[in-house]
Each structure stands twice: as C-alpha cells, then as structure tokens.
C-alpha cells in the first residue's frame, strides 16, 4: 500500500528534483572549467599587451592595443631552446619506444627464470627521485665525454624512459592472445620472425601511447636538462632562465610560457585519448 502511494506522489517532485540536480551539475562543471581556464585567459591576454600596458592595476583587463612584440621577443629568446628540445625529444622518444617494445614483447611472451623479479626491479627506476643518481650520473657522463652534450642527454632520457615504455608495451602485448604467436611458431617463425610478422603489425596503438607519453615527458623535463646539458639549454631551461631574470617583462614571460607549451598541447588536443592511456599506465596496473 504505502509503496504504491509513494510511487504515485513522487513523479512530479522527482522530476523537479532531477531538473535541479542537472542544473547544479552543469553549474559546477562550468564553474570549474572557468577556474581551470583562468590562467590560460591570463596568459593569452597578458602576452598580447604592449610593455607599457603590463600594469598591475589593469592586470585583468583586456589589452587596449593589440601588440605582438612580446611574442616576437619571446620567440627570439626561446628559439635555441625550442630547437634543442626538438633535437632531443625526437631521437630519445623513438629509441626508447623501440627498446620498450622489444622489452615488453620479451616480458609478456617469453618466460624466463627471474622475470618476475627483474621486471619490478626495472620499474622501480621510474619512481626514484633522480637526485639519488644525479651525482654519479654527472661524473659518468663526463668520463665518457658526453657531459653537456645533446647525445648525453638523449642517452639519459632513453635509459630512464625504459621502465615506463617497457611497462606500457608489456601490458599492451599481454592482451595479444598467445594462440596467435603459437600459430606463427608452428609455421617456423623464431623470436624475430614472430616479432616482425605478428607482434609489430598490431603494435601501432601501443607505439602511439608510448611516443606521446615520452614526447610529453622529455619535452617537459627540467632536472636532467639543467644538470646534464646546461650548455645546450632545452626549452624548459630557457624558459626558466628568461623568467628568473628580473628584467624580463611579464608579457614576454607569458608569451614564452605559451610557446613552450604549444607542442605538447597540440599533441594532447589531437591525441588526448592516447595521452590518458599513458597517464593511467603510470599507475602500474592501469
């Protein structure tokens, strides 16, 4: 009895409740979206102001005159860093992706004794604070004459990128049914044959995830860049130098920040889905 009575009386109230909760959900979402985008608004607006206009009292107002001087200055200051970063990030990403793919293939499809211990030990390498290896690393790089060179920094990023690239590919290949490989090995294909003919052709999504992840990480990295390659400043170091010197105007700093962020932002906006996958893979089980 009571149940039916309640059911009869609720529909109109439920409907208004539902409407209100929808309004609340959207209001909150829009509020947070505005909050998250506030710094972006500030960056873009400040960067188009002329130097005379960068004034604390008018900080939140739109520029009166539209000026691209700040962008021009920022580009001049940042250009060497941008090109250094591209020269670093492309080879480092490609090499670590290839090595990660091979490692992931071995660890997921070829059982060998000790693999269950070796893999977690490898993974530990991506969680350590790099300060704990920095002093011997610098010494080692000088002893092999790679200190302060681009190849040196590439080597560093390849090595310390191995755990995450191996992890992503291992989890990716774990989904590939073993029957597929067994069929191939009956046909007489060996380790490389199976990799080349069966595994590699279906690896594209894995490579996209890994390449995007490594690209973003290496582009944004600062600690290695500022210690191992001071003389070939990467974009993050160039930006910090520009921001650290007191004489550079805020409009230039904002334009430079935006310039430094453009490559990773483009990748994120175009391939966000794969970026999120790499992100979640970082929490080991994903």
């Amino acid at each position, binding site marked *: 009895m009571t149940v039916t009575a309640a059911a009869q009386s609720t529909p109109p109230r439920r409907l208004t409740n539902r409407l209100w909760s929808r309004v609340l959900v959207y209001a909150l979402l829009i509020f947070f979206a505005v909050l998250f985008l506030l710094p972006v608004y500030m960056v873009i607006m400040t960067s188009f102001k002329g130097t005379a206009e960068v004034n*604390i009292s008018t900080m939140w107002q739109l520029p009166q005159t539209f000026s691209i001087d700040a962008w021009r200055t920022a580009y001049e200051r940042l250009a060497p860093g941008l090109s250094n970063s591209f020269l670093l990030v492309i080879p480092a990403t490609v090499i670590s992706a290839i090595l990660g793919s*091979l490692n992931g293939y071995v660890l997921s499809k070829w059982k060998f004794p000790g693999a269950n211990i070796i893999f977690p030990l*490898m993974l530990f390498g991506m969680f350590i604070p790099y300060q704990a290896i920095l*002093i011997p690393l610098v010494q080692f790089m000088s002893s092999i004459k790679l200190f302060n060179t681009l190849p040196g920094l590439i080597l560093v990023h390849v090595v310390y990128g191995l755990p995450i690239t191996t992890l992503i590919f291992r989890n990716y290949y774990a989904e590939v049914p073993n029957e597929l490989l067994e069929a191939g090995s009956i046909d007489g294909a060996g380790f490389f044959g199976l990799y080349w003919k069966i595994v590699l052709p279906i690896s594209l999504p894995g490579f996209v995830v890994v390449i995007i992840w490594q690209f973003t990480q290496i*582009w944004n990295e*600062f600690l290695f860049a500022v210690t191992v390659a001071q003389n070939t400043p990467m974009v993050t170091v160039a930006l910090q130098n520009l921001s650290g010197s007191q004489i550079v105007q805020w409009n230039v700093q*904002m334009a430079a920040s935006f310039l430094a962020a453009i490559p990773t932002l483009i990748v*994120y906006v175009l391939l966000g889905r794969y970026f999120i996958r790499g992100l979640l893979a970082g929490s080991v089980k994903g």
Partner: protein
Amino acid sequence: MIAFSMILPSIILLGIFVYGFIVITAQTSMTDSTATQRLSRLPANFVGVQNYNDLFSGPLDTRFRIDIVNTVFFTGLFITVCLGLGMLLAVLLDQKIRNESLFRTIFLFPMALSFVVTGVVWKWLFNPSSGINYLPTVIGLPPAQFRWFISEERILEFNWQDLPTILAVIALSIAAMFTLWFAVKRRSRAAIYGFMLVMILSFLVFSGVTASLNALPNPETHGFNLALIAVVVAAGWQMSGYTMAMYLAGLRGVSEELREAARVDGASEIGVYRHVVFPLLAPITLSAIIILGHISLKIFDLVYVMGGGDNLRIDMPGLNMFFETFRGQNFGRGAAIAMVMLLLVAVVIVPYLVNSFRSEAKRS
C-alpha cells in the same frame, strides 16, 4: 635464450644507471666529498653518518629541516586537494553530461604542461600586488591581501627538539584508537598487543625518554608555512585532472546493472554512490595517494621556478639537494639529502610494487 639476450642490454643499463648509481650516491653520502677534494684527486674522507646527523640535528642545517616539514605539510595538502577535486570532477562527469569530452579535455590539459610553465604562469598570478589578489576588483570588491608564495605567515608551530615526543604522541593516539577498536570488535589478542604498545609508548613519553632524544642544542621553530598554499594551488591545478582520469576510468568500470540493482533496492542516487560506487573506488584512491605522494616527495621544477632556491618558505629537499650539490659543491651533503629523499619515496613505492606484482602473480 635469444629473448633474454634482447632484454639484457636494458637490464644492464638500468642496473648501472639506477642501482649502481644509487650505491655510489650512498657511498658519497658517507664522505666529506667536495669540489676541492675532487679536483685534487684525493680520496674523500669517510665520515660515517655525520652528514645525516648534521641534516637532522646540526645547528647550521636548519634548511633541510624546513624542507622536511614543508614536504610533510605540502604532501598532505596536495594529496587532499587532488583526491577531493579529482573525485568531485569525475562524479560530475559521470552524470551523462553533454559535451563530456570537452570538459574532460579542459580539466586534464594542465597535465600536458611542464611544471616549469605552470610555475612561471602561477608566479604571475600569485604576484601579491596584482594577480588573483586583484580578481575581486573586477566586480568592485577590495583586493585580497594574502601574499601567496612570499607570505611570511606560519601556523601549527612546534619546536624541532620536541619532534620525538610529538611523533611518539601521534603514534600513541593511533595505537590507542586501534586498541579500542580491537577491544570493541572482541579481537582480544590484537587488543592486548595494542595495549602493550600503548603502555610502552606512554612510558617513553612520560618518563622523558623521547624528550631526551633531541640532539639539537637550541630550540628551533618550525611549522606550516602558509606560502605553501600557493604551491598546492599550482600543483593541484596541474595534477587534479590526473586523479579525475583515474576515478573516471574506475567509475566506467562500475556496471550500470550494479547501479540499477542498488536503485531497485531503494537506494537514492547519492546512496548508490555511497554504498556501491565509492567502495569499488577504494583501490584507485590508494594508487592515487601513492602516485601523488611520490610526486610530491620529489617535487623540484615547480618550486625551483616559484622559489628560485632563495625562498625557504616553499623550499623542498629536491631543491636543497640541487643547490647543495651543484652550487655549493658539497657532494657528500647533497648525496645524503638525496638518500633521504630516496628512502622516503621507497617507503611509499616498494610496498606498492611488491603488492601489485604479488596480486598479479596470483591472478595468472
């Protein structure tokens, strides 16, 4: 065999670059190695745990102790903000929203940025005499007065010499809580062990043993520097999207049938979340705490850009290690700081890795 030989180079590289280098850092941390010593090619003197002693109780090493206290407060606040905001955004996005992917893109885009970019932008926004302090003036209100990352305010102050006692009291209250809980649940053996622990800890506190553990000659005040709030806001802006993505992936894993079943049982929409969805997200929360925790323990770029190494109010061990080593050329001291950082991260990460792989081994 071929398979193993293909992975061998990676194993050797990581063996040297991770474990070999950690061993060398550990060795260096027990010496008084400096630039002069290295240039003169003389072996550094072995000083045992002297560097560590200095860091925790040397009268001149206040900076490291500030860093540790900063790290603790920053980590707690940063994790709370990221979990709370991430969960809220994920639940909001889970309400079958129109333009969901647009909102998701907005909340997650800061993750694609460098901490250096975040630092530069927020330094401008936190400028005390402009920035977000002047945001209220847009709608005619007076500007806010908080000085953000250069604020000198400090709350929850304590004397570093009291730290052993404070830690013991905290441990004591946790142990007492558990003992009580065990007693209520009638798990008598656990309750007895808990009671013994409580007794031992109270003895240590009240007999003055913990108070006598302070090795620092003079009182030294530490506390929660409110300037850290600025760093938490910037870091939270960047990383909340990450927890949101983790929670969202978890929410998508909760099947609609399960929720429908709960609704049929009379659960309200909030009840469905409380009794069905949130319990299923508990493992994700744990992962998120560990990942965020280890990020905040090693944080470097953001505070480097915002503080530049001079602003001790927001200083962190990673920054201290960098300046000690590469500006001060005190390799022994720098290595000791690095080892403390490694230990802190290992305490969080090693159980996590062991647990992940133990459960994986069970499944397969």
